[in-house]
């Protein structure tokens, strides 16, 4: 039974389910509706006319349309963290408990104090702000801008994290169809019957498009009957997929389309484990745009009064929702189609006050209808509307010939004709073509594989829509390689379509073109007067068409008016560029799963879970989580832990997971020759069983990456990269192999994840290793000298690789085992290391020891330094060609005054250093002229018991011993430092060779 509250609901008819009543709240007031309603239709059924306030003047606004083109009826939907500003009431599906609030008003919708803006309307014309608010300069940020920002902006975002989930998915089809109206359904039938994989997207929750409101007879059936039969057949076809609540919003290269599925927006919140919305990337061989057309307003004084509604929308509310926007309706039309609203209204027992028809001749049938229903047909135009918050009261009509008339009505239906939805067909910067017969822009070409059909293609008759849709469906299927029998097309009559173009009725009072942005006809005239004649200038100067409705109702009228005032034709004036998305899409949907902690994937080392058991502190390095240090009970800060770890290594033995290094198998007879071309130093001469440090340049001569590479066999090298460059170096080497040096017989395979690799360092390294490694293996200095590399067997028979290389400067080995044994190896090292109090150390201690040792790393390999800058010029071979050799010789890269790596320590031993400080000659006032370098890496050195650092300093190596000034205004620090040898620890390297 019809709830008492629904004063404007018809007793019968419509596609609502009267057995499923729903309660909802609008601005705190509880109202009732039915399943099948939109928020807009339910508001109408409850007699609500005032729904929102406009952007600039805060004028009262009602519901203009019944679709995603709605400029006025925008609300804040839902509450709290789920609040969605600017939600179109016309597309929001009603659910029980829905909460909506009007926006952009204060304190209330009925009494909006911001409406005082209307008093200043004479000043707030298009572009007014460009001409004022300039004095005094400081006032902009302080006063004007905050006021403007507060006044603008429509709805309020939640301001807290979105609690809902989103995901993204891929779909493939032969034929993609946008729209489920007569053209779309006919296309799906033809393509599906032909055997094609079909996806049909419909943004509405009900299928049928305009048929749902306009009805009609197809194959002798009612539209409703035909829709259900068609859907029934489509579901029997194996590869036809119908996606309702899904808007196709964009077309991208290579036949990739973007669509947004509102999976659970029709519920208060998504069920557990389900997403709110899903972003689809649909790959289609062919696509058919059957997105219909949008009825366009006529611009006249007072055309934004609540109760003024598009004619097609008004009959949609009556026919589909059994809701009556008004009891006594006037129609203002310039075409025959508008009259359907009269028929619908009469059919629902509503009164017609009058029809104002701008066409010179109205059909006999319509005259007969008027006579029968006893309403006048006035030849002329609506020149003004009396009314306000509570809707339309009276309409004044300028009759052809000059006389005036007045009509009492509480609702005005307007039809200015129809604009095909040309968005999708124009997103590759295509420009639609003007068709005089329907006075509208029609697609002129489209992205590859796409065609338009039906109203979207300018075919407004039902019969034509079916024919075009069916033909397009069959053709698309055939082009996609499916030649099955498409059967016979559905048949219907074509209504006559006659239209007399009418865009703007001159007259007193504000006449709106862009309702939401309050752009009036006079704004467009002003823009033209000021030289903003190009439609793009017009758009940017007046903000025409830039609101949330993307100008769906305003663009064409706007440029028609511009054409008129600038004395050009509409096609000459042209359209702006159409931009995706077709409807606004939640940012969360584009992100999908990739937000918060799942923003990017995470890489874990083989010892990760063991380290976590030790309460290690982890640091993000690229995608990796690495143990940064291992705090112990009683240690007051990271520095204390790191210092302990360093001392433990220098004094005994420690180990560190270095599995994050990039590892590459370089195989083949030409492996050595290949490495000679990618490294600045030579590897073909490296003996089997030996490792060597290597440095790579970019082709522009700048240092790219470094690492040790070992020769495990004549035709097998094991190359390591830095953690950061693992991926890029692999790509670079493949480029060298496949593109630059294809004649070399070399193969590359990333084995980064195959090996768990640990650095074991400290004077007691051998003692520990002997516990782990099979006793038969000779680890003596003779049996396994510095820079040796070979496979060994561990106790228990596991095969491993040992590399005698040192980053810490201590006697050290790197050991690698197959990754799934990494966890066991760590535990065994701890077990075997007990007697030597073996100490796991993290990346901080690693960093400290490399700085003490003067090894360069990320902060020095910063993409602007040369080998010589890093003190590695001497290893650059002069006897061979290699990547970067020639460009490295350019004058500015070999200039004597370059900034080069040097060590530094504060003259005040107690002083802490910070990276990022700049180096200024002592006693000089800092300026760009004497800014001679900067500090790259610093650490507290437990070994030297003071802070030390590395810096890039002009002529640094010639200035060892010089006292310079470290200038750090950001942190308010200034102090003297002494430039010194970057190798602070064991300069002759005795310890690592010992």
């Amino acid at each position: 039974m019809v709830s008492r509250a629904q004063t404007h609901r018809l007793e019968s008819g419509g596609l609502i389910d009267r057995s499923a009543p729903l309660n909802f709240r609008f601005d705190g007031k509880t109202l009732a509706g039915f399943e099948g309603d939109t928020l807009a239709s339910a508001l109408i059924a409850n007699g609500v006319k005032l729904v929102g306030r406009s952007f600039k003047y805060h004028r009262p606004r009602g519901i203009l349309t019944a679709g995603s083109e709605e400029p006025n009826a925008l609300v804040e939907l839902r509450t709290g963290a789920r609040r969605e500003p600017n939600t179109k009431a016309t597309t929001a599906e009603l659910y029980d408990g829905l909460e909506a609030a009007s926006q952009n008003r204060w304190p209330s919708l009925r009494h909006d104090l911001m409406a005082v803006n209307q008093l200043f309307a004479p000043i707030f014309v298009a572009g007014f702000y460009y001409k004022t608010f300039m004095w005094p300069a400081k006032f902009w940020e302080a006063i004007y801008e905050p006021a403007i920002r507060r006044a603008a902006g429509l709805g309020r975002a939640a301001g807290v994290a979105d609690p809902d989930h989103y995901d993204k998915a891929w779909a493939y089809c032969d034929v993609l169809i946008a729209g489920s109206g007569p053209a779309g359904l006919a296309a799906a039938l033809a393509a599906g019957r032909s055997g094609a994989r079909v996806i049909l997207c419909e943004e509405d929750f009900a299928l049928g498009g305009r048929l749902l409101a306009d009805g009609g007879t197809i194959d002798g059936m009612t539209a409703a009957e035909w829709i259900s039969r068609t859907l029934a057949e489509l579901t029997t076809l194996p590869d036809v997929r119908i996606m309702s609540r899904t808007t196709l919003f964009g077309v991208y290269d290579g036949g990739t389309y973007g669509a947004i599925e509102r999976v659970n927006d029709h519920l208060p919140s998504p069920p557990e484990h389900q997403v709110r919305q899903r972003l689809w990337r649909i790959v289609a061989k062919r696509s058919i745009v059957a997105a219909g057309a949008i009825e366009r307003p006529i611009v006249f004084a007072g055309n934004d009064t609540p109760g003024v509604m598009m004619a097609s929308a008004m009959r949609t509310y009556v026919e589909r929702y059994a809701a009556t926007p008004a009891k006594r309706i006037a129609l203002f039309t310039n075409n025959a189609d508008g009259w359907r609203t009269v028929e619908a209204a009469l059919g629902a027992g509503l009164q017609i006050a009058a029809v104002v028809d701008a066409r010179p001749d109205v059909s006999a049938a319509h005259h007969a209808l008027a006579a029968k229903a006893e309403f006048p047909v006035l030849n002329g135009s609506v020149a003004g509307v009396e009314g306000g918050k509570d809707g339309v009261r009276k309409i004044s009509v300028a009759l052809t010939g000059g006389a005036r008339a007045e009509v009492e009505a509480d609702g005005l239906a307007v039809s200015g004709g129809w604009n095909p939805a040309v968005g999708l067909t124009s997103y590759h910067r295509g420009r639609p073509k003007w068709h005089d017969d329907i006075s509208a822009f029609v697609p002129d070409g489209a992205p590859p594989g796409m065609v338009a059909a039906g109203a979207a293609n300018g075919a407004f008759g039902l019969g034509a829509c079916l024919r075009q849709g069916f033909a397009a469906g069959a053709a698309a299927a055939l082009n996609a390689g499916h030649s099955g029998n498409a059967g016979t097309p559905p048949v219907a009559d074509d209504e006559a379509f006659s239209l007399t173009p009418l865009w703007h009725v001159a007259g007193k009072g504000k006449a709106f073109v862009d309702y939401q942005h309050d752009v009036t006809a006079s704004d467009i005239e002003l823009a033209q007067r000021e030289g903003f004649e190009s439609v793009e200038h017009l758009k940017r100067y007046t903000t025409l068409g830039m609101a949330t409705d993307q100008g769906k109702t305003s663009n064409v009228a706007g440029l028609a008016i511009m054409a008129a005032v600038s004395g050009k034709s509409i096609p000459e004036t042209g359209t702006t560029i159409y931009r995706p998305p077709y409807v606004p899409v939640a940012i969360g949907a584009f992100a999908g799963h990739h937000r918060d902690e799942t923003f990017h994937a995470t890489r874990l080392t083989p010892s990760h879970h063991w380290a976590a058991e030790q309460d290690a502190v982890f640091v993000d390095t690229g995608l990796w989580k690495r143990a940064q240090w291992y705090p112990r009970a009683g240690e007051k800060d990271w520095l204390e832990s790191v210092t302990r770890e360093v001392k433990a290594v220098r004094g005994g033995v420690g180990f560190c997971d270095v599995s994050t290094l990039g590892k590459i198998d370089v195989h083949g007879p030409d492996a050595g020759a290949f490495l000679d071309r990618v490294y600045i130093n030579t590897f073909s001469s490296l003996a089997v069983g030996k490792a060597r440090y290597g440095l790579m340049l970019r082709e522009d001569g700048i240092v790219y990456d470094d690492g040790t590479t070992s020769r495990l066999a004549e035709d097998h090298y094991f190359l390591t990269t830095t953690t950061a460059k693992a991926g890029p170096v692999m790509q670079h080497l493949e480029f060298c192999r496949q593109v630059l040096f294809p004649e070399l017989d070399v193969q590359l395979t990333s084995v980064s994840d195959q090996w768990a690799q640990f650095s074991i360092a400290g004077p007691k390294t051998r003692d520990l290793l002997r516990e782990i490694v099979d006793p038969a293996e000779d680890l003596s200095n003779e049996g396994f000298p510095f820079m040796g590399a070979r496979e060994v067997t561990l106790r228990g028979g596991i095969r491993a690789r040992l590399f005698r290389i040192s980053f810490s400067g201590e006697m050290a080995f790197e050991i690698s085992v197959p990754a799934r044994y990494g966890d066991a190896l760590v535990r065994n090292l701890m077990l075997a290391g007990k007697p030597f109090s073996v100490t796991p150390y993290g990346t901080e201690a690693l960093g400290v020891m490399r700085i003490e040792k003067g090894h360069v790393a990320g902060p020095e390999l910063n993409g602007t330094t040369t080998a010589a800058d890093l003190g590695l010029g001497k290893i650059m071979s002069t006897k061979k060609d290699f990547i970067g050799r020639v460009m490295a010789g350019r004058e500015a890269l070999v200039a004597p005054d370059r900034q080069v790596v040097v060590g530094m320590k504060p003259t005040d031993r107690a002083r802490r250093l910070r990276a990022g400080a700049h180096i200024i000659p002592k006693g000089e006032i800092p300026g760009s002229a004497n800014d001679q370098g900067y500090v790259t890496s610093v650490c507290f050195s437990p070994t030297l018991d003071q802070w030390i650092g590395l810096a890039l300093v002009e002529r640094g190596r010639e200035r060892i011993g010089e006292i310079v000034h470290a200038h750090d205004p950001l942190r308010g620090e200034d102090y003297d430092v002494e430039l010194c040898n970057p190798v602070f620890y064991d300069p002759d390297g005795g310890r690592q060779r010992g």
Partner: protein
Amino acid sequence: MRHSIFSLARAALSGHKNWQRTWRDASPKDHYDVVIIGGGGHGLATAWFLASEYGIRNVAVLEKGWIGSGNAGRNTTIIRSNYGLPGNTGFYELSMKLWERMEQDLNYNTMVSQRGVINLYHSDAQRDAYARRGNTMRINGIDAELLDLAAVKKMMPFLNFDNARFPVQGGLLQRRGGTARHDAVVWGYAHAASTLGVDIIQNCEVTGFSRDANGKVTGVETTRGKIGAGKVGMAVAGSSSRVAAMAGLRLPIESHVLQAFVSEAIKPLIPNVMTFGAGHFYVSQSDKGGLVFGGDIDGYNSYAQRGNMPVMEDVCEGGMALMPMIGRVRLLRQWGGIMDMSMDGSPIIDKTPVDGLYLNAGWCYGGFKATPGSGLVFAHLLARDEPHKEAARFRLDRFRRGAMIDEKGVGAQPNLH
């Protein structure tokens, strides 16, 4: 008519019937002292500085479409001078100082809004790099502050601090940075330059160069006929290679698409300009209420002024990683501009090997914020035939000499800058 609240009120009384064109709609003359190709912000600013600073008023600006139809109208409106390398630092600060007096200079409100630009950092290494950069700025007299986590939380409590993949640790803040209304900058320079006698000629596409026997450029051939010129300046970022090719030049430049996005208008949510340090995302909120945001270039050479979907997703992922509160805010429009990506990520302002032809190009992402500075130094070069001191390092031969200005340190791969 001079703009002021009073003139506006006066105009209102007369129903705004008396407003003149914002700039004269000029037709080409036979000859100009200087012809500038490109009616974007840089070209129009150059013309205005030539007329106002260097007294050269017989100037034409040629625009193939409507003024501001290139990157001047397709950017994310950010202004800042937080660069770290010699050459960039001084130049962008010169530009920032010109932004600060632009409205008074032009008598046009370009809505310069110094709301602050903050670059967030997420690791110690990033902090150190920002410290180096911030100190460079301070040493050059530019405002810069290094904020710690607490300060960032205070300023932007809405960021994702609790469950972020790459937690924010702090940020480098330039309070004088901010935004400006991009179209208004174009119209403002057009308005002011036109007032000083500069001819702004729209729908006039350059199709070739006129050269004399010695190869000197003596003018341009256009869709509106030959136009003679004492000097010709190119300010056509996005099309630099195509125009230069007409003079037989190859440039160290590639054209790439940079997308930008705007959301539906919402009430004030984001107070400043932010860049995410662990992904490709930067954002500010326009005075109209839209979130204006962007990220990385699409990654391949392109002259198609439209974006692809993977980058669109990548940018929104960055946004949702940094501030998941924007999940329900809707993306309203997506567009793409064509960037002049140079081989070191920094611009080129120099004479060319062709006598009489001057180049202003290679702006990468820096084009909009550089607009006034670019106009001044390019005007200086055109007027004096020697580089302005703040543009002395933007020479064309720096690549040959190895004197690159590579802020990102990625080398000669434009799509990585």
